[in-house]
């Protein structure tokens, strides 16, 4: 089972993602961080293989956290999950910072799992 960390300030999005991950059969959710700073800490303590991270969060946002994670941990695979995915320059910036993919909200479970399985 691949270990996934969910990072989103929205409790309801975290619930959605945790449910999708729990019901997948091949992924397990190792925790929920509410902003980028918590994500960096939990990446250290929970050692996830995949991070599903929102872009737009209060405190440290997703792109700032991604920038740090890409330097600190070359192994972890980050997928951005965001309502801003369709904004071209945000999408490109995320890829340039090392994100493996960007999932736009609203998302569908099948699409999320397909992308996670392709990592």
């Amino acid at each position, binding site marked *: 089972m691949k270990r996934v960390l969910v990072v989103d300030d*929205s409790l309801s999005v975290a619930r*959605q993602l945790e449910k999708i991950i729990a019901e997948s059969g091949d992924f397990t959710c190792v925790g929920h961080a509410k902003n980028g700073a918590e994500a960096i800490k939990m990446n250290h303590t929970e050692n996830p293989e995949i991070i599903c991270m929102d872009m737009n969060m209060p405190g440290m946002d997703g792109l700032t956290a991604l920038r740090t994670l890409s330097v600190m941990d070359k192994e972890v695979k980050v997928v951005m999950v965001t309502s801003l995915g369709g904004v*071209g320059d945000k999408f490109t910036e995320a890829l340039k910072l090392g994100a493996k993919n960007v999932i*736009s909200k609203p998302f*569908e479970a099948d699409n999320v799992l397909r992308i996670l399985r392709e990592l």
Partner: protein
Amino acid sequence: MAVKFFGQFLIEQSVVTSDALLNAIDLQDKNNLKLGEMAVSMGLITASDIQRAHNAQMSKDMKLGDLLVEMGFLTLDQLNDVITRQKNTHLYIGEALVQVGALTSDNLQKQLDAFKADQAGYVSDGIELPIASANNKIWEMTADLTYKMVTRVLNLRFRPGKCTLATSISHNFMLAAMDFAGDAEARYLLSVSEGLQKSIAKAILNEESVDGEPVEILEDTVMEFINVVCGNVAAKASQMGIIMNINPPVTVHSPLGGMPIPDGHKALSFPIHIEDGDTMELILLIKE
């Protein structure tokens, strides 16, 4: 099921890799010259002329091209020639992907058709606004995308009411708000009853019942719904050449008597009459 740009669609569909897309974007960056760069490459102005125009932009809210004409660096005909050359030599992302070998020409057309079909639901039908504003197209699109998300995300049947100019913001069970900043500034407010808050929560959480859910989760689902709408508005606006940034959503607690419209703002009210008789309201507080 969201507003996307073509490169993102191709990655999500696993048609191209992120590395291939970044290569194609690099090629685009090298090929697609900005207006000033194009004018220099055509031998019409110098880099120092551009710098002087950029400096002048600090105190004048004008596009670079208009400023270059006003400052006498370009004639209007020359500006039009530069813009035409930019358009004629523009390398689109699909063509760039073909040039870097990530797509064949045949597959490009097939993927463009699939992309068009995927995004067809996000083409605006047009909404009539009671004000004349430079950004009316953006506000019409905002209302239109809200309607589409009410259908697609919340699975609610509704009839949009006529847009009117509001003189105050009526009290309701919950108001969720997000601010747009950048080229078009406004506060997006969604006003919902207790029943509609539960309908939104059921749809967002994909649950049959939300009766035992804590208040913070129920409120969060409404905020997440407007976050999705506003993110997609920002994406659609960027496709229209308008930069709109968003901040995380917040809950606004309105007094029983409602709230006044802040000075320097106009409020557009879009009633959304739900099939079961309830009504939610989209309010756009537009900065004048």
